[in-house]
């Protein structure tokens, strides 16, 4: 990965704790650092509860980070106040696509009202006709019939709803989109549709994605680089091919060994690699660049061995 590429998002030592100081304190994200280049797709994978979604929600400031910095286009957005002027500007630049297409659209709003919410907030396309035109354009972009703008969400299928969600995110013309498991609630045939749509839009508009998922094959397909998360920490980050061909962290190896392959012969022989996490997190461990562009959560000794 070329270093001269422009970084659009840079996360430095991000920490997100919940119920601080109480018995049930949770360290959902514990000292995570990474960056995302402009125009690329960074896949974020990990098991349930590893902190993937929390990372996304902290970056988009649905949560207020406990500690650390989030630089968006060089500006630290981790501490700007809710509903301030800077926040409003930031809200326009970064958008999110949600996991559950049945929960992400207000059942009591029409499609055009759902999509135009962002337009209203940011004062885009204010006239009535101009607005309808813009909504139609957005629906067309996500391959939905603009005639359907006065329908309610329940009249659409899961894939169509997800595309309405994408249109809503695109309405404010953002540069960076966090896709929080956008396909995990969809049918396999629809998954490809939505992923292809996301890629087409990315090409067309030069968007940057943070793609959160747990479907490894899909992540490899869409991502330029992949970050593997475990227990609130990123354990490995490298280009998609590098992660698949040369996994260094034992957790990554374990994850990759779990991918089923649609071939009975291979499946019979496939053995899962178990991951022993008792040795993985000690004081000596930290996030280091062991090979060019390949980051690993490891001890200094391990890093030296790899180099």
């Amino acid at each position, binding site marked *: 990965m070329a270093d001269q590429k422009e970084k659009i998002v840079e996360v430095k030592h991000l920490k997100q704790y919940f119920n601080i100081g109480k018995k049930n304190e949770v360290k959902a994200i514990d000292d995570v650092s990474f960056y995302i280049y402009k125009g690329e797709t960074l896949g974020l994978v990990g098991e349930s509860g590893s902190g993937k979604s929390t990372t996304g929600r902290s970056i988009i400031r649905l949560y207020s980070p406990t500690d650390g910095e989030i630089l968006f286009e060089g500006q630290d957005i981790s501490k700007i106040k809710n509903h301030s002027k800077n926040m409003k500007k930031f809200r326009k630049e970064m958008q999110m696509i949600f996991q*559950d297409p049945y929960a992400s659209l*207000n059942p009591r709003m029409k499609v055009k009202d759902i999509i135009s*919410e962002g337009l209203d907030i940011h004062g885009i396309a204010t006239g009535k006709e101009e607005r309808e035109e813009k909504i139609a354009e957005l629906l067309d972009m996500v391959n939905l019939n603009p005639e359907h703008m006065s329908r309610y969400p329940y009249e659409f299928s899961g894939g169509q709803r997800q595309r309405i969600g994408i249109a809503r995110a695109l309405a404010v013309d953002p540069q960076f989109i966090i896709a929080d498991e956008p396909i995990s609630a969809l049918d396999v045939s629809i998954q490809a549709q939505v992923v292809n749509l996301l890629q087409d839009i990315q090409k067309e508009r030069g968007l940057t994605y943070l793609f959160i998922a747990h479907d490894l094959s899909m992540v490899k397909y869409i991502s330029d680089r992949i970050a593997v998360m475990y227990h609130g920490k990123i354990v490995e980050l490298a280009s998609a091919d590098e992660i698949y061909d040369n996994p260094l962290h034992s957790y990554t190896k374990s994850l990759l060994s779990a991918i089923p392959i649609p071939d009975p012969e291979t499946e019979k022989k496939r053995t899962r690699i178990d991951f022993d996490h008792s040795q993985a997190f000690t004081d000596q461990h930290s996030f280091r660049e062991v090979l060019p562009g390949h980051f690993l959560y490891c001890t200094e000794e391990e890093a030296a061995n790899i180099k």
Partner: protein
Amino acid sequence: MENLPNISKDKLKLVTKTNDQDKEKLDTPSLTYMQDVRRRLFSNKVSMVTLTILVIIILISILAPLIAPHDPNAQQVTYANLPPKLAQLNIPGFNGFQNQNGHMVDAYKQLNVPKGQYYILGTDYLGRDLLSRIIYGTRLSLFVAFVATLVDLIIGVPYGIISGWRGGRVDAFMQRFIEIISSVPNLIVVILMISVLQPGITSIILAIAVTEWVTMARLVRAQTFQLKEQEYILAARTLGESSFKIAMKHLIPNLSSTIIIQTMFTIPTAIFFEAFLSYIGIGVPAPNASLGTLLSNGQLSFRFLPYQMWAPAIILSIIMICTNLLGDGLRDAFDPQSDH
């Protein structure tokens, strides 16, 4: 391939995107959400019938001074306990006859009521016209119900939304406050009010204002807690929507069924609360009538003069049934999915 029929080229047409779209074109005009709600409500027959009945009852009670045939509080002891009589028509039950010791007797003749004078629903034990008293009584009961609903909506709903939306310490504080209020029995609140104020409509309304909204606030808070984790609320937040707008555009429409159902409970509760207070003598002071006082008076002589209780009881039941059915209709009207 040889079996294929020979179709000339000009019969084929290139299908383009626009052709497809025309097929899916919607004929229905595009309405806003609120217009949709109105359309659904108006197309529901039960709602329209109950709404009409309620509007008529409300209009009559508003226009009570014009409509009531007699002064509701004027006593005429000589004409006490007259049975219902409607003009000179001989309708059973409305002809002025009364059962006395097994014989049907014309009570109006017995008491020498002048020929042209009659009471449609009869008179009570002080000779007051029951119809006029019911009209005025309905007016008062509906007013109490209206105030209770208003308090529910103006205090209960925002209180619940704020408590649920803010969560954390604000919520804890607001909930302790509710617990304190609801731990004091209503009756004690009223008695305390009366020790400061005169017994009457003001103290009843104040007591309702202090206590009635608590259930609504609790229900709305619980629901808000669920709703605020919904992804469409998160989406609104990532778009930069203000909390107030989120409440108005997302929370309230989705809370509407809870709010409507709870209001449907509030209306009868308030009417009965007033009736109960009047019954034990700390509500509406005599001689003013409310549906509650009419029922309690009628109940005293129900075995001998049943009409004195029937009339207010029927009116109260009609109001209850209509508000409940209308509530159901409203709840459906607010739900887009009820069309199918």
